[in-house]
């Protein structure tokens, strides 16, 4: 009887498949900002899941790779409510995740970074383009995946100079971030040999972005606003606040192209990008999310893929090991931009080509040919090592 039982147990044991080791779990948090920025153009209005949708796709991609390496990636999504404490939310996420992808305003990002400083949690900044976060306010536990304002401005300036549109009429919005963008554009003009022939501020006097008889009024306002300007080749608009720039094309007093916040726009990604195998990620994204992929989606995708890349290269799920790899000399990631992306080791900013898009097509990709650099041509975009104010701590 006992013998029979033993034999039966033996048979059962044999029939059971060999159990694979439990996969290594890699937790990634996503911390999204409260509210959605209003856009002038209805077709550009961001979706509720702008950004996080890219992270979700990268989790799928990471898991396809992970099944060959016995790694499993999980995304924990948190979106802040208006007035909610950032540090608290970040700390709660850090309890379960070694990495947090952050789409936060600059001050919120710094609060989160400082709250997590002693825990070893790494923040990947996917949403804030402020240069100060990589300069005087840089933090050792933050990797910046989003490009900076200065990278965007330099990318645009290189193209305008290549095109011989060197005389700029600069129109600046009245909000702080518009002024920061204007600063970056002025710096770019000086660096690459363009001249700002005149500057004008467009005051935000309030008012709705959608009105029933909007066009009629705008058509009268914009030509008047742009008249009596010295000879210029292009109008460059700094309007991150989405107050006026999209009203300018086809309405300027002089027939001149518009660039900056409308017309020809520098960006990390566009739904029209189809070079370098990009059509594949565009297709995967549309299939998963039933909409097209934005720059924020791509920044979150890249951040999540960077973690996946570090995990497969180190064959580890240990956040410390992964962070060390990301900061090390062997790290690079492919992100459908025709070149490998690496980190600037002095401030942990991801080097990347910048697309110049018109809303329908990719017009060009910077750095432009002929802008040379002793380390990487990608370092012709943005604040370079000799100018940096960052001391990583």
């Amino acid at each position, binding site marked *: 009887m006992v013998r029979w039982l033993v034999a039966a147990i033996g048979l059962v044991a044999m029939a059971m498949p060999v159990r694979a080791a439990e996969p290594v779990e890699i937790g990634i948090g996503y911390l999204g900002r409260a509210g959605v920025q209003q856009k002038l153009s209805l077709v550009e209005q961001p979706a509720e899941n702008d950004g996080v949708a890219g992270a979700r796709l990268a989790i799928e*991609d990471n898991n*396809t*790779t992970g099944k*060959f*390496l016995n790694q499993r990636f999980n995304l924990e999504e948190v979106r802040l409510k208006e007035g909610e404490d950032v540090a608290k939310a970040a700390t709660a996420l850090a309890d379960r995740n070694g990495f947090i992808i952050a789409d936060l305003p600059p001050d919120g990002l710094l609060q989160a970074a400082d709250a997590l400083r002693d825990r070893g949690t790494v923040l990947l900044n996917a949403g804030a383009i402020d240069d100060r976060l990589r300069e005087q306010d840089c933090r050792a536990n933050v990797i910046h995946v989003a490009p900076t304002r200065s990278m965007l401005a330099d990318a645009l300036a290189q193209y305008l100079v290549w095109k011989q549109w060197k005389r700029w009429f600069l129109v600046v919005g009245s909000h702080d971030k518009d002024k920061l963008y204007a600063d970056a554009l002025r710096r770019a003009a000086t660096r690459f040999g363009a001249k700002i022939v005149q500057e004008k501020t467009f005051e935000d006097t309030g008012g709705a972005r959608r009105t029933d008889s909007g066009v009629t009024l705008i058509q009268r306002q914009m030509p008047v606003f742009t008249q009596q300007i010295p000879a210029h080749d292009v109008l460059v608009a700094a309007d991150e606040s989405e107050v006026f720039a999209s009203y300018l094309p086809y309405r300027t007093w002089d027939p001149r192209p518009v660039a900056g916040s409308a017309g020809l726009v520098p960006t990390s990604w566009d739904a029209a990008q189809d070079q370098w*195998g990009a059509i*594949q990620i565009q*297709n*995967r994204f549309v299939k998963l999310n039933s909409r097209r992929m934005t720059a924020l989606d791509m920044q979150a995708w890249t951040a999540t*893929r960077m973690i996946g*890349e570090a995990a*497969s*290269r180190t064959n580890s799920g240990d956040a410390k090991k992964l962070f060390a790899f990301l900061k090390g000399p062997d790290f*690079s*990631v*492919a992100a459908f931009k*025709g*070149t*490998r992306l690496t980190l600037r080791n002095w401030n942990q900013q991801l080097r990347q080509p910048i697309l110049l898009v018109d809303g329908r097509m990719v017009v060009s990709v910077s750095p432009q040919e002929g802008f040379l650099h002793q380390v*990487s*041509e*990608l370092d012709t975009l943005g604040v370079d090592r000799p100018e940096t104010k960052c001391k990583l701590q």
Partner: protein
Amino acid sequence: MWRRCLVSGTVLWLAAAAPASAFMAYVSNEKGNTVSVIDTDSWTVTKTIKVGQRPRGIEFSRDGKFVMVAVGDDDTIQVIDAKKQEVVDTLPSGPDPELFAQDAAGKVMYVANENDNTVTVIDLEKRARIGDVQVGVEPEGMTISPDGKILINTSETTNMAHFIDTSTRQIVANVLVDARPRFAEFKHDGSELWVSSEIGGTVSIIDPVKHVVTGKVTFSIPGLRSEAIQPVGIGMTKDDKTAFVALGPANRVAVVDAVSHKVTKYLLVGQRVWHMAFTPDEKYLLVTNGVSNDVSVIDVAAQKVTKTIQVGELPWGVTIAPQ
């Protein structure tokens, strides 16, 4: 006078003997939606065949009667009759086919479908899809081991070479390589598998038995930034002694000592060089230059570029009729 006559007679005799080496090369033009046919005797395009949208991977059938070309945006593989020089059939390839490989008998074809992370298996006689293998993200490079037992597929975002047993169609090993692996090629003796990484900028040498990377070919061209060196197509001579590696926007083909894995020479070709094919006598190597819309002809023994032939818009793949 007598002597001059003899000399010109010899020249005439030489010229008459030359056409013995004439082959037909087929070049897929990614943007032009055409295939250019090149006569390797006159080195001219003798015909331009209209095909489907976005033709890339292109290969002769084993019997030399057909040319198969993956037309990615039409989600199929078209079959060109090499005699009629026109499209006569299509194969059920699965979505967005890019590169494919055939078994030695020419009966089974394996297709990389970039859009759904699978390799599709096609019975070439029945023109039917007979299986799928799930692989990594964005499958691309495809090749079969000389003994026919292992199919290699590379996945561009997963960054792996997947080893697939051709009898069971199961993955038996995965080898991590540098970023965006695009092309895989075995040595003819089966001792090494070479995988090019476009973004990583290297070629990994893999031991096909132990499934480990044993070495890497690295490239460095004075005056050129390293990001511009993007290895894609690989060609290996039959004696396994010399390999040619197309370096994409570096506009060069590297000549590699296949034993020491060191680059011995860089040949300047056209812009964004993609893929390559040897003539069956291995005298010439044809490489496609994606941006300059031409094909460079390399004299294999002399290791020199001898000719450039204008083809269609954005040439990508090339295949040459077997003898």
